[in-house]
């Protein structure tokens, strides 16, 4: 990988971290409501996997921890932030919020707040790709907690039987909300669970983007070549709580400190510094640029955008413009 690309990836990960940090602040200022699930700590996974796929071309779907996946797919950060602010300019026009970011212009098909629900939807997106005969694949990012839903098993089975072009990316951060995987899941290595469905699978470090990328490339290529689905597991950790209301009482300071040493941004920047690709000053200047962009473009856009009109409350429930032949009056109705 070229030095420029390496720098770009590191800068992207720093952007994602600071974007989420800024969301945290806006939530504390009560500018963002509802539930807010932040991605800090897991940046190497979405960044590395999407770098090996075709963002904007391949379909991407995920759960409620979805801001970074959307942006890496090509969604505009200012539209994602405006969505969190509930504004009409938001990526879901203020109707979705943090957990339901959608941007079909870049084939980001949504964040969903029912744990495990994206599995079948992803297989359906893949079925669509196969049906249309394109070279697109569907990528489904979900956590280890989702794997205990029935949809996991049902979908792995069908995706495998029908050889659907879908890549399941398990972001194993080891906690299902506040319950550790040891206490909820009989088979801790998630990639082993799909061997029952005759599916290719592998497990990798999710904190080092240089480990993520080659593994993801192999999986993406496998799926795109038409061989069927692939299940890839990345071991990772979320630095913040499950959501903003989570005080993280279920894990120790020692455990957190251990994982903090494995911060994907810290690891990658150290590697790039060592190779002489990037300097501390350069990183500092990026941080300034990013903070400036966040404040003067992204937050400003969200703050200044209009809210949806209350007259539009019922908009988007059904098709606004259906064919009158199907919806129109019955011709033979009596009086």
């Amino acid at each position, binding site marked *: 990988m070229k030095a420029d690309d390496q720098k770009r990836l590191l800068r992207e990960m720093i952007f994602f971290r600071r974007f989420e940090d800024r969301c945290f602040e806006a939530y504390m200022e009560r500018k963002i409501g509802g539930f807010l699930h932040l991605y800090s700590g897991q940046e190497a996974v979405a960044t590395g996997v999407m770098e090996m796929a075709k963002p904007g071309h391949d379909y991407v779907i995920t759960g409620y921890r979805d801001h970074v996946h959307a942006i890496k797919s090509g969604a505009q950060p200012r539209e994602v932030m405006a969505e969190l602010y509930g504004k009409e300019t938001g990526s879901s026009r203020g109707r979705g919020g943090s957990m339901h970011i959608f941007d079909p212009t870049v084939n980001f098909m*949504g964040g969903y707040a029912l744990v495990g629900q994206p599995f079948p939807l992803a297989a*359906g997106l893949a079925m669509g790709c196969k049906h249309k005969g394109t070279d697109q694949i569907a990528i489904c990012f979900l956590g280890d907690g989702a794997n205990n839903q029935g949809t996991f098993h049902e979908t792995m089975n069908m995706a495998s039987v029908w050889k659907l072009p879908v890549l399941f990316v398990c972001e194993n951060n080891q906690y299902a909300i506040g319950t550790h995987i040891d206490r909820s899941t009989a088979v801790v290595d998630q990639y082993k669970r799909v061997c029952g469905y005759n599916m290719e699978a592998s497990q990798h470090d999710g904190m080092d983007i240089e480990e993520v990328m080659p593994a993801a490339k192999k999986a993406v290529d496998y799926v795109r070549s038409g061989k069927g689905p692939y299940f890839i597991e990345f071991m990772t950790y979320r630095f913040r709580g499950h959501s903003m209301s989570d005080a993280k009482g279920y894990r120790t300071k020692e455990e957190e400190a251990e994982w903090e040493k494995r911060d994907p941004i810290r690891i990658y920047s150290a590697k790039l510094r060592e190779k002489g690709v990037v300097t501390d000053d350069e990183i500092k200047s990026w941080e300034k640029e990013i903070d400036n962009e966040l404040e003067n473009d992204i937050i400003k856009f969200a703050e200044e955008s209009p809210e949806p009109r209350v007259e539009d409350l019922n908009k988007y429930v*059904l098709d606004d413009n259906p064919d009158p032949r199907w919806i129109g*009056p019955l011709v033979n109705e009596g009086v």
Partner: protein
Amino acid sequence: MAETAYWEAIRRAHDEEMANDKMVIAMGEDIGVAGGTYKATLGLFDKYGAERVIDTPISENSYTGIGIGASMVGVRPIVEIMSINFALLALDTIINAAAKIRYMSGGRVQCPLVIRTPGGTAHQLAAQHSARLARMFMSTAGLRVVTPRGPLDAYGMLKSAVRCNDPVVIIEHERMYNMKEDIPDEEFFRPLEGAEIVRHGTDITLIGYNYNVHLCLGAAEKLAKDGISAEVLDLRSLKPLDREAIRRSVEKTHHVVIAEEDEAPVGVGAEIIATVTEDCFYALDAQPIRVHAADVPVPYNAKLEKEAIPDVEDVYQGALKCLGRI
């Protein structure tokens, strides 16, 4: 015109829509090689192949979800759920995904998905194969819910549903698949909205949907022998509901009975009575009556089963009560 059975009408609509648009696919349990439990897809596997007439495993929630995912990217799936009881397993994807994706994406993503499922009590299928969940879908924003009462609507509404950009739930009925009716040979579409007067009358309005329309028609025959002119209104669509048609008919007859196979608490009838009292209370000359199923799981025993669900006599008695004749 040709006399066509309900199942044949559905099969013909599948066939024509699949021939018209290769994005139309069918999926469900046993619908391919086996031709469908109710023959609604008979012969289509041979004609369109395994990629378009898809036999699914018994995994209702996820194969419905796969249909939803495919519909989001331009495919137009017709998903068959063999019994509405099994649709309970798929309520997550139907109610939490299909119905909400357009809204929660701000209108940017849609699910042009059709779900066909028979809902109702047949012959001694017992509690777990006799559910009627019309009320559950009726109360979900973002769905269209239609209930074709005969082959004409079964054909024309399925064709409209396939081309509609909203998720449409079509509630059929086990006892209707062999029901016959003349339908035109040339292609036609039937609206997905709007109630229909299937028998004109002046003394009382009998409201039904799906199979219950036939109970209303039977009751109207009996009432005619008593010199009572009953109007029969088929709701056709439970969502959206044609409140205007209900109001117009009640303002004409001043009496109303709703027949439903759902249980009474929170059934379709509860919504209809509420609609009538809200929209045309002062047009009523008597208390509205709902004829509904008993609030019990449907029993296996034939005698008990008959007692648990409404029949023509129940609707007839309901009408007499409304009219103050008993």
